[in-house]
């Protein structure tokens, strides 16, 4: 077995053991930082056709420097679906492709650019970056709490969740892009930041060299790398529309001659629709309409004591649940609908007269 093959095999075995081996395209460089590479040549020769003993040269030694390199890769190739007023978690992998063991600091930030091509249109209220421990690939709120990774060997990879608090009231299909930045530092708890040597002179001292590329939001050779993911809200988008139709006035009767004069009869139609693209039904809908003081509710439009119509069914004006969930009280029309599936509508009709 050749030495290079051995190295590669060891490297690929290590990668295969981890979930995010796919992300491990860039393999760490081979020579460990800090080792001394020594080279001694030899020479043999003949003098008058007589072979002389071999002579060794001096040793040309240098210490392999520390090449800091890392990658951050979004594991998801599309949005993480989230529901409002909950926490969403997006998984990244961080790979130490340096030739040394390092520690990593993690930070999460909002990003205005959606990596999946959509349009970022909201920011989660809080963002945290935590290491995926416990069951790998599953966000466990009580377990995945570490915000730094103190010791990662060469070729080591680990998972990081960006945990985002999705605001309540966020609309269906809204998008929030987030970026994870991992910054390499000295290994160990509270390891110091890395600095790059600019004037190395002694071959036998290990220098630190930054070899990382530019991620989504970081620069080249800054010991940091970043990649972005995004959340997409799965909710219900309910729209409400209200139309007003003048039915008649007390002088000229019905349209088209009716005008909005005092005593005119006006019909309001309130339509509440859960968008067909909604991910969930809307529940516990309460539609309320506070009538302005310039109109008077017509109490008996759909029968004695039934001035409200819901989807073609007369509703009593009394607050008499469970007979029906509609009422007219204190100048307010109130209708309750338990649930509205995606694509469904509720239509509420009532009439008023102009005072």
């Amino acid at each position, binding site marked *: 077995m050749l030495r290079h093959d051995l190295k590669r095999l060891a490297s690929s075995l290590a990668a295969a053991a981890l979930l995010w081996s796919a992300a491990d395209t860039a393999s760490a460089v081979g020579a460990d930082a800090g080792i001394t590479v020594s080279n001694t040549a030899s020479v043999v020769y003949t003098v008058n056709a007589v072979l002389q003993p071999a002579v060794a040269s001096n040793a040309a030694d240098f210490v392999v420097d520390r090449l800091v390199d890392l990658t951050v890769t979004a594991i998801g190739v599309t949005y993480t679906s989230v*529901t*409002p*007023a*909950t926490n969403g978690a997006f998984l990244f992998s961080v790979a130490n492709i340096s030739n040394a063991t390092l520690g990593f600091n993690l930070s999460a930030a909002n990003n205005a650019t959606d990596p999946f091509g959509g349009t970022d249109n909201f920011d989660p209220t809080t963002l945290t970056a935590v290491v995926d421990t416990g069951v790998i690939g599953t966000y466990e709120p009580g377990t995945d709490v570490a915000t730094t990774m103190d010791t990662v060997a060469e070729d080591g990879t680990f998972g990081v969740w960006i945990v985002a608090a999705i605001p*309540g*009231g*966020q609309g269906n299909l809204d998008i929030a892009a987030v970026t994870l930045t991992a910054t390499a530092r000295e290994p160990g708890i509270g390891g110091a930041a890395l600095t790059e040597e600019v004037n190395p002179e002694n071959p036998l001292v290990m220098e630190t060299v930054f070899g990382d590329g530019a991620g989504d939001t970081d620069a080249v050779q800054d010991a940091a790398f970043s990649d972005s993911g995004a959340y997409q809200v799965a*909710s*219900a988008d*309910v*729209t*409400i*529309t*209200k*139309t*007003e139709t*003048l039915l008649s*006035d*007390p*002088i*000229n009767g019905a349209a088209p*001659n009716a*005008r*909005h*004069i*005092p*005593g*005119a009869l*006006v019909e*309001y139609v*309130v339509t*509440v629709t859960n968008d067909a693209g909604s991910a*969930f*039904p*809307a*529940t*516990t*809908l*309460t*539609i*309320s*309409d*506070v*009538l*302005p003081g*310039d*109109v008077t509710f017509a109490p008996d439009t759909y029968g004695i004591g039934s001035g409200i119509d819901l989807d073609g069914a007369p509703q009593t004006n009394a607050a008499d649940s469970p007979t029906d969930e509609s009422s007219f009280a204190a100048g307010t029309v109130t209708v309750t609908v338990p649930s*509205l599936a995606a694509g469904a509508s509720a239509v*509420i009709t009532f009439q008023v007269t*102009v*005072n």
Partner: protein
Amino acid sequence: MGIRVTARNWIARCALAALCLLAASDAFALGTPAGTVVTNTATVTYVVGASAYTQSANSAFTVDERVDVVVTWQDAAPVAVAPADVDRLLTFLLTNAGNGNEAFALVVDALVLGDQFDPTNARVYIDSNASGVYEPGVDPLYVAGVNDPLLAADASRLVFVLADIPPATLNGERGDAELEATSLSGGVTGTIVAGAGDGGTDAVIGGGTSAVIGSYLVSDLFVSIAKTAVVTDLGGGATPAPGSTITYTLVVTPNGTGTLANVVITDALPPFTSYVAGSLTLDAVSLTDAVDGDAGDFGGTTANQVTVALGNVAGGSLPQTITFAVTID
């Protein structure tokens, strides 16, 4: 409103009109003003999972103008007049019963059929200073197209018709005059006048015209009041001095034919006198000083004044006598 006779007018003609600033009575008084934008918001709240949402939608319309005018005759009964009287007054109330500002044209017609005579020289005056009474020389003569009264929604204005009574009229004859008010926006009910309403709204003519008849009645009916005073001093003599008592006697005599409605006699105390409690009598029957079931009171209806309501009094009926006493301070 009744005829009001005061004891200071020793003889009062039964022609005095009192004010009647009644609120207009009709249907859409205080309707939503024309031009008002009525905005109505429907709100839906709903829940998805742990999240609550609110959405709302508006709809709005603008209230159009309804034109309505009402004219009422304010005199409770035909105004009593004598033959050849001039500038006799009929009082009307013009009310804008619509919901917008409106101007009205006025026409008086004295040639109404169904009466016994036609008043002459009928003219219209406007109570433009809203004083509530006709003020000769102050309230202007109405000229159509020049000073058509402009009234805000639900506002009212008194309108006076002055006319002369022909000499050749007999007691008991009635002469009518009709006052008609027509909205300048139009008078035909149901007409829609685009853009003529307040705020550019459409004006819909409801009651665009209103007319009412007022009447004069030739009458010789009047009340005469004779007032006498008897002074009694503290020494039993008749010297008016502090402490002396003055007893007043008012003899009210109805004259002529017909009936006087709601005759009320009032008499204010002279200065530096004090009413003697319990001294009020009517036809020798004592009246309480309080406002109660009997006909008279002191100081209750009006402060420091004797008031006796005689009710309807027929012309030629027996005189009625009122007495009361005061002391000199």
